[in-house]
């Protein structure tokens, strides 16, 4: 260290001012900063590269030839991609609406009611979150085969509803954990019936959780691959599956462009969800 050259007295002074980093000040530890930087590199370099090469004016993905938008144009004009994107939107849109509705009710029920077998029930609700997606996909496929339901957009949508409900329920439930129940009592006390109380007191409090749950369900559905792979049939190819099939053919900048669109879409939704939660959270939680 360069401090060696400084007269010993001022070293002492300096040491005292520069006290040791406490455990929480990890930002001040050099080696931790390096580990952190490496982590970020591992996480984001492939994504950054993917995005960068979507603008590369070359058929191959290895050397940088120049900037272009032409692969976005190509991807846009690719009828297969177009259809897949539309399918994804239909599936994600429908499954989000249904799973938000059911998941919100489930989350509220788990928060509100004590009933026999509630513990096991709660565990059972969370099961789809921890079960490997492959198993879930196989199970769905087996079920649809047994019930003699032809694979298609319908089966994909139903599967997506099934696996996103628990996520919505968990988000809504955790939102309700901070709810002051005397608000509902106050509403009753002031003459409102149960229905009025729910819509004018309880539900407004739930909204950030419901919105966050819905956006989570939408992104999960939008980029789901495994379950969709098992449950989709002819004509129900979704965006991720289409990209996968294109990659199997060859990795072209067109794939990069399509993937970038997917990334931007999910990122936008996630950030929106976080912003909504942060804003309403601040508005409501600072009270009492």
């Amino acid at each position: 260290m360069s401090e060696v050259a400084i007269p010993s007295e001022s070293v002492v002074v300096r040491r005292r001012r520069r006290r040791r980093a406490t455990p929480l000040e990890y930002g001040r530890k050099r080696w931790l900063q390096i580990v952190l930087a490496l982590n970020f590199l591992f996480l984001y370099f492939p994504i950054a590269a993917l995005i960068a090469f979507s603008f590369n004016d070359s058929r191959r993905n290895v050397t940088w030839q120049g900037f272009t938008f032409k692969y976005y144009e190509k991807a846009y004009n690719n009828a297969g991609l177009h259809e897949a994107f539309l399918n994804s939107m239909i599936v994600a849109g429908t499954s989000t609406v249904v799973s938000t509705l059911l998941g919100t009710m489930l989350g509220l029920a788990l928060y509100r009611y004590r009933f026999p077998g509630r513990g096991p029930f709660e565990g059972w609700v969370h099961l789809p979150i921890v079960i490997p997606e492959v198993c879930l996909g196989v199970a769905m496929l087996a079920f649809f085969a047994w019930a003699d339901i032809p694979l298609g957009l319908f089966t994909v949508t139903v599967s997506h509803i099934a696996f996103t409900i628990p996520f919505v329920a968990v988000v809504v439930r955790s939102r309700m954990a901070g709810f002051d129940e005397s608000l509902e009592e106050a509403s009753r006390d002031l003459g409102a019936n149960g229905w009025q109380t729910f819509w004018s007191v309880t539900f407004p409090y739930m909204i950030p959780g419901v919105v966050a749950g819905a956006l989570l369900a939408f992104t999960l559905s939008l980029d789901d691959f495994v379950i969709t792979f098992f449950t989709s049939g002819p004509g129900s190819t979704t965006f991720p599956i289409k990209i996968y099939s294109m990659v199997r053919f060859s990795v072209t900048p067109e794939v990069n462009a399509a993937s970038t669109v997917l990334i931007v879409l999910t990122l936008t939704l996630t950030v929106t969800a976080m912003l909504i939660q942060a804003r309403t959270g601040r508005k409501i939680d600072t009270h009492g």
Partner: protein
Amino acid sequence: MDNPKPIISIRNVTKRFGSVVAVDDACLDIAEGEFFALLGPSGCGKTTLLRMLAGFEHPSEGDILIGGQDMSDVDPNKRPVNMVFQSYAVFPHMSVARNVGYGLRVTGVPAAEIKERVGEALALVKLAGYEERMPTQLSGGQRQRVALARALVKRPKVLLLDEPLSALDAKLREAMQLELVRLQQSVGITFVIVTHDQDEALSMADRIAVMDSGQVRQVAPPAELYEFPNSRFVADFIGKMNLFAGRVAGAADGRVLIEIQGMDRIAVPYGDQARGEIGVAVRPEKIRLAPTPPTDGEIGLRGRVREVAYYGDESHVFLETAAGVITANRPNAARTTTPAVALGDELWASWEPADTLVLTE
């Protein structure tokens, strides 16, 4: 009481939560227009009793009548009472005006009337001009006023308040005590307030019910409660009290003779029958301190000053006597920094026999 028309009748009400008896065979009549306080230590069942009046809990046994009507099948939203919650429970996503108007909107009062009544209610709690503020933009005291206005705008027969002042700082609390009393007098509604703070209850209420582990121990106006507590619990809980264990040695012409360990036998005026082990009590402010024994007729006790606690307006002198440590309050009437009583002083404590309480319970 002398008022023949109780607005609230609590008849042998018991409330159990599993094995916990939160309220134990409570009987109370609260008169119309009264400022009534439920006072007791934490966990004695005050909130439970209040919540049964509001309809959020149902008595395990007994009946509650409000305005002469049995409440057992009446839901909270149909009762002629309104409550100010301990947490205020101001709706966080509604403006002040919408909060106050809420109870009118849900019951279908016309918009024009709502506007007028909300304005009146806000003026009553001195929040005129705050209509469009959100709860987050209000202080704790202001939120409480919103909760008050929101309940009062419904024109209930009874207003229930659960520890309404406990979250406020000392100065604001004192101001609000006075204001609540003024408010109650101006609207003429019966107030039932729950508190664990005896000063609050004494200074505000017309009548106080002292509760202890679910039981109502005494119901009386503040002065009666303070000067004539009916039990050791009430005597000890309300204000400060010197308590002695005594034995009745006899009775003669309206007086009982009591033996207390470490004291001469004393004669105390007492109307009722008393025998055996009893409690003897005297308030610290009734005790005088002097360097010489008291004159005839007073009860005297010699002791040594062990500690003096200075409070500005008065000092509390702790005197070590043969009957135990007793406390005497001395007003600091003269403007001086020299203490009138010093540690180790040998003094006589004395009080009138009539100031002595005999507690048989």
